Structure formats: structure tokens, C-alpha cells
């Protein structure tokens, strides 16, 4: 699967550009490149439902980002400035903990099955019961809407809570001091 590695390299480069570039609009476009690469990788690992949702969500994310930048400024003034002491401290601390994290994750990755050999302990039961038990041909839809419908209820709760938060924050008319 050489194309997966190529897309991952592309995503890492685009992510570094997104965090380091001075123009915020360009950063958002780089973020969109990462997101659409994620959608293509979902297709390559046989997850078409995820690819559809990822494309829709990615377009919405970029539209929201561009709307915010359009109303404010698109220059990141903090890029060219001299590094303050606290900034250098945070970079050093981050490097230290990132190194610890990578060592821990290399040890942890020995525990999970290698790429391409997923163990299907729970999933084999869902696949067996999917069509007769839940009645849907798409097993992902069976899992989210029948076997684990409570998770989806929680998801809807979080989504509507965030919508209420956005609506409360964005309204321009309100109590003035």
C-alpha cells in the first residue's frame, strides 16, 4: 500500500506548512489539504461512509475558518517576532514530552495488531448479527444506529450543545453594559 505512505508524507508536509506559514488563509488551505487527504485515505482503507462524512465536514470547517478570517485579519503577526523566554520554555518542554510520548507509543504499538491484520473479536459478532438482527445492509450504520445507538444519542447531545454555544456567542444584539 505505497499510496497510503505517499498520502501520509503529503499530510505531514501540509500540516507543517499549516502551522508555520504567516498568511492565515494559506494555513487554512493547507489544513484543507490535510482534511481531504484524510478523506482519500478513508476510501483507500475501505471506509466509504467515513469518506463521505469527512468531505462534508471538511468543506464546512473550511467555510467557517474562512468566514472568521474574513471578518478579522489574515496576517499572523506572531511569526516573525523574536522568541520570548516563555516561548522558548514551552518549545523545550514540548520537545521533552514529545520524545517521552514517542518512546511510550513505540512500546504501546507492539501490543496492537500489525497494520492489515485487525483482530475482530467484537466485530465478528456484529457482522454475524448485522443483517438478521438490525436489518441494515450497511454494517457501520447498524453499529451506530442499533448496537451502539446510545453513543449516537451522546453525539447528538454534544453537537446540539455546541450549536447552542455558537448561537449564544455569535448573536450581535444583546445586553449592553
Amino acid at each position, binding site marked *: 500500500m505505497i499510496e497510503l505512505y505517499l498520502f501520509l508524507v503529503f499530510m505531514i508536509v501540509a500540516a507543517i506548512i499549516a502551522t508555520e506559514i504567516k498568511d492565515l488563509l494559506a494555513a487554512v488551505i493547507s489544513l484543507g489539504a490535510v482534511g481531504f487527504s484524510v478523506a482519500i485515505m478513508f476510501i483507500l482503507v*475501505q471506509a466509504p461512509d467515513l469518506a463521505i462524512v469527512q468531505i462534508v465536514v471538511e468543506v464546512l470547517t473550511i467555510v467557517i475558518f474562512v468566514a472568521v478570517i474574513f471578518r478579522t485579519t489574515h496576517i499572523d503577526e506572531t511569526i516573525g517576532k523574536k522568541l520570548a523566554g516563555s516561548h522558548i520554555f514551552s518549545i523545550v518542554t514540548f520537545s521533552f514530552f514529545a520524545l517521552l510520548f514517542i518512546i511510550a507509543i513505540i512500546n504501546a504499538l507492539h501490543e496492537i495488531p500489525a497494520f492489515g491484520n485487525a483482530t475482530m473479536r467484537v466485530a465478528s459478532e456484529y457482522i454475524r448479527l448485522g443483517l438478521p438482527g438490525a436489518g441494515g445492509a450497511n454494517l457501520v450504520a447498524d453499529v451506530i444506529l442499533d448496537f451502539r445507538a446510545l453513543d449516537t444519542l451522546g453525539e447528538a447531545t454534544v453537537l446540539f450543545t455546541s450549536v447552542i454555544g455558537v448561537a449564544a456567542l455569535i448573536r450581535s444584539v444583546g445586553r449592553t453594559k
Partner: protein
Amino acid sequence: MIIFLSCIILFLIGLYAIVTKRNLIKIVIGFALIEYAINLLFALIGFRSGMLAPIITKVDMPHKFVDPIPQALVLTAIVIALGTTALMLTVVLRIYNRYKTFDIAEIRKLKG
């Protein structure tokens, strides 16, 4: 193994943006990068080489599917990521309207 580690590197780039960047939009971009990395890692863990997408197209077809459970979990997580990103950007917009800057050091100075 290498492919999982690449996802972790993408995660760490996002974490770097959150921890060390001083621009609020860059911090939100870091959160979005972390969400992509985690979603991708889950979808990659559930992959089985040579298997099909988990959709039953014939009644008595052999069950050679990739793992549907990580896909269901990620489907939930993608939508929640959109909600949190929209909420964060709204807060950032309100902060800009009040302080006229994205620099968190300037915002800290202007407080009170």
C-alpha cells in the same frame, strides 16, 4: 507500525501548534490536526488487507469485511470535531472583536 507512527507524528505536529503557537487561529488549526490524526489512526487500526468495505451487497456473501466498529466510532468523532471547531472559532471571533488581536501574549497583557 511505520504507518501508525506517521499518524502519531501528525498528532504531534498538532500538539506542537497548540502548545507553542501564540496565534489563536493557529491553535484551532492544531486542534483540527489532532482530530484528523486520531480519526485516521482508528480507521487504519481497523483495516484488514484484501477485505471489503463493511456493506452487505449479496445475501449469502462471505463475511470478508474490514472492522466496522472503529469506523462507527470515527463517524461519531468527525461530527463532534466539527461542533467543537465551530465553537472554538466563535470564541476566537469574539476575542478578536474585543481585543483586536489574535496574539495570546497581547491578550494576556490587555486583561483587566
